[in-house]
């Protein structure tokens, strides 16, 4: 754990991880709520300060970093990318935040149904405009 945990700045990404991945979860490899979030599940902080002040002892710097990224709706994959944490680790930490009601899941999977024609058209137009 960084001694100066304000934002973990001394952990420079290009140096690689300084602790083994599951050290930041306390060795846990399964989400506490048993739910495996999809890579493109969308999560968001649950309003206010996201409950960050409620139980600081249970929140690690990684929890707080994820919470900051969740101020806007964001996908699990983007959180993993932005934090440079493996997806499995992000899932465990997100589950903690969800159980603390600091974060909520907007949508776990893209959809069960195929997206509608309007969405497909929007995707097509977007791709053509690249």
């Amino acid at each position, binding site marked *: 754990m960084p001694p100066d945990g304000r934002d973990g700045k001394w952990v420079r990404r290009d140096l690689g991880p300084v602790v083994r991945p599951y050290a930041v979860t306390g060795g846990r*490899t399964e989400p506490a709520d048993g739910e495996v979030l999809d890579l493109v599940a969308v999560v*968001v902080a649950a309003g206010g300060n996201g409950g960050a002040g409620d139980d600081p002892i249970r929140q690690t710097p990684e929890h707080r970093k994820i919470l900051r990224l969740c101020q*806007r709706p964001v996908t699990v994959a983007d959180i993993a990318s932005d934090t440079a944490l493996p997806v499995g680790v992000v899932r465990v930490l997100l589950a903690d935040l969800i159980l603390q009601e600091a974060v*909520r899941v*907007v949508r776990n999977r893209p959809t069960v149904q195929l997206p509608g024609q309007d969405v*497909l058209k929007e*995707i097509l137009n977007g*791709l053509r405009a*690249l």
Partner: protein
Amino acid sequence: MGSVRSDGASMDDGAADIPVLAAHKILIAGGFGAGKTTLVAAISEVRPLLTEERLSSAGAGLDSLRGVAGKTTTTVAMDFGRITISERLVLYLFGVPGQERFWFMWDELAYGALGAVVLADVRRLRDCFPSVNYFETRSLPFVVAVNCFDDAPHYDAEEVRVALDLDPDVPAMLCDARKLSSVKTVLTTLVESISAADPGPRRMVSALPPV
């Protein structure tokens, strides 16, 4: 808050001020060296993404698992790119490693995916057989794109279609994974074929939520 954790598109009530973010995934599959990384880089904002690989029995004796009791995975980087269609609509490309030891990841990645691109290299066409089989079995819409390497013999798309015994509704095409315009055509063809397909209940992957 009544957060919605199940599948489905229902949005949370009382979240009116939060822009809805719709995220869709497209898988990029194909054998080792078929050009998945190149294709993802040609069209999307590439982002680093670490995920886990299940340790093979071969690796199990070599990699110490001390301190992570019960863990049988190791961390690997995967091809991952983001295409921002609009503020509220994002397309994610995930490179699906073709090697067998990554197969446990496929169901999770394929679950709820829009569709897939199977990249083929005519010099090693059989490398893409498993991908084609996988998507056919799961009824996930896909296109086959033959990456035209400079030093590879030339075949046209129809020859590849015959060689792979593709269904008539599966587009096959030639592409240059290095070129944005070419990759754009591949992805638009995929989305067009999804759009043209009969609407109806989602055909795929309902059986297999990620474990």
